[in-house]
């Protein structure tokens, strides 16, 4: 007796559990082997003004003595890419946020310009996600771009309790995706995020992440130059930036994490983003300067922001942070 040749309809019907399993794998439910990524968003009071008040400035000069540990430097030419492009040129305030669904569907009672702002200082957002290993051969940890400030991403999904604004501010979901995705998993992995039914939480799913570790970031949000967005991201490494004359430095107040074997630093100057890799054994302060031999296309412009990732010997990100300067 011959077996029956499966019809196309049979094949499709048998495909259901496979498709459902793939969908389930892409949802944001933690499994038994998951690792926690926590995101703690603490919006600051909205304020205007050219400069933010800065803390932890005292004593920074003394810590700078051990710095200047630049080993590798490359420059990213900023392309005119989409909002999720790998360079931060999309932080240009001239770029359209293009959020037709949000603006078109703005709820009744919102201001005419569609802006909904919740800057309650007590608002806290946390998230969790899966971090199984990244596929073999994926070597993108620590690359990519996480920028601070700038316009909303294309999927501006501000929600009650999730602060920020429509359509000009980063949301918890935006921040979760950017804060987790780029320093932690690099560009080759994807990430999704969504608020959970519990107010104040956002669920982050990283697929497939590279770093089987637990990270927690505090993300400060404030208004700057008329845009509400992220102004700093802080993990477990305390740091400060200091601008003296033409020189800007990044200082790790308590040193770098013990597990870190190198620190990867990115900073934006004019329209260029520069990347430096610092050897942690040489000191705890890093001068943010265009490397010798490279052309500073924007010599008159200050550094806009700096971000760093601390990376261990297995090329896993063990911490990250940064702020607008």
């Amino acid at each position: 007796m011959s077996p029956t040749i499966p019809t196309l309809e049979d094949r499709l019907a048998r495909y259901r559990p496979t498709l459902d399993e793939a969908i389930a794998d892409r949802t944001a439910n933690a499994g038994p082997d998951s690792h926690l990524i926590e995101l703690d968003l603490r919006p600051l009071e909205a304020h205007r003004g050219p400069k933010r008040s800065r803390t932890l400035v005292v004593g920074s000069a003394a810590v700078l003595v051990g710095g200047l540990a630049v080993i590798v430097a490359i420059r990213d030419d900023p392309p005119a890419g989409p909002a999720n492009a790998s360079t931060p040129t999309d932080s240009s305030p001239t770029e359209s946020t293009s959020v037709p669904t949000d603006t078109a569907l703005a709820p009744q009672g919102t201001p005419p310009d569609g802006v909904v702002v919740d800057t309650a200082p007590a608002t806290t957002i946390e998230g969790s996600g899966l971090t199984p290993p990244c596929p073999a051969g994926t070597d993108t940890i620590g690359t990519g771009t996480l920028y601070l400030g700038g316009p909303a991403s294309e999927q501006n999904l501000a929600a009650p309790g999730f602060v920020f604004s429509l359509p000009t501010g980063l949301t918890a979901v935006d921040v979760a995706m950017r804060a987790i995705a780029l320093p932690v998993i690099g560009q080759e992995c994807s990430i999704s995020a969504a608020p959970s039914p519990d107010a104040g939480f956002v669920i982050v799913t990283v697929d497939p992440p590279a770093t089987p570790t637990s990270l927690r970031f505090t993300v400060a949000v404030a208004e700057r130059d008329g845009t509400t967005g992220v102004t700093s991201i802080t993990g477990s490494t305390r740091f400060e930036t200091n601008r003296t004359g033409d020189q800007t430095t990044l200082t790790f107040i308590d040193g770098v994490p013990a597990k870190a074997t190198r620190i990867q630093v990115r900073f934006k100057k004019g329209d260029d983003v520069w990347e430096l890799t610092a050897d942690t054994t040489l000191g705890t302060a890093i001068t943010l300067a265009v490397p010798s031999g490279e052309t500073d296309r924007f010599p008159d412009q200050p550094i806009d922001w700096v971000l760093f990732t601390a990376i261990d010997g297995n090329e896993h990100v063990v911490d990250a942070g940064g702020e607008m300067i």
Partner: protein
Amino acid sequence: MEQDVTGRAFDAFVRSDGQRLRRVMSSQYGVDVGCESTDAALAWAWEHWDRLRAMNNPAGYLYRVAQTHARRAVGRGRPVTFPPEPVSSAESGWSIDGDLADALRLLPDHQRLAVLMVHVYGWTPIEVGRITGTPAVTVRSHLRRGLRHLRNSLSKGITP
């Protein structure tokens, strides 16, 4: 108390309509983009829950929100991804034509949506049309064309 009720209602919505939407979006745009866009739409739903819950067809409305996200993602070059067909089918004793996942990727998204929702998930064209805002007759047309294209692709053993 009110917040608990709201949370439970939203939770129930995510479990029912959210799951339906996830299947719809994954069928139309592939698993990766489909799930991401569903997550984005559910985030939007959470924000606008009071308004959404009062709608006659909240899942249909949310489908449009998710579709906006998905189209952007696909427009940026995000691939349409489907898992490989289970090995058991291929080991049924016959040589099965073509790779089903690859053939699905080649279908226009509306045809793929109709084929998968009807023949994988057992929806009627009316049900598909209700969530996508498409007349049932149009869904049936997508379904016929989709199956024809799928058969052609599989018989040729194409690979993208």
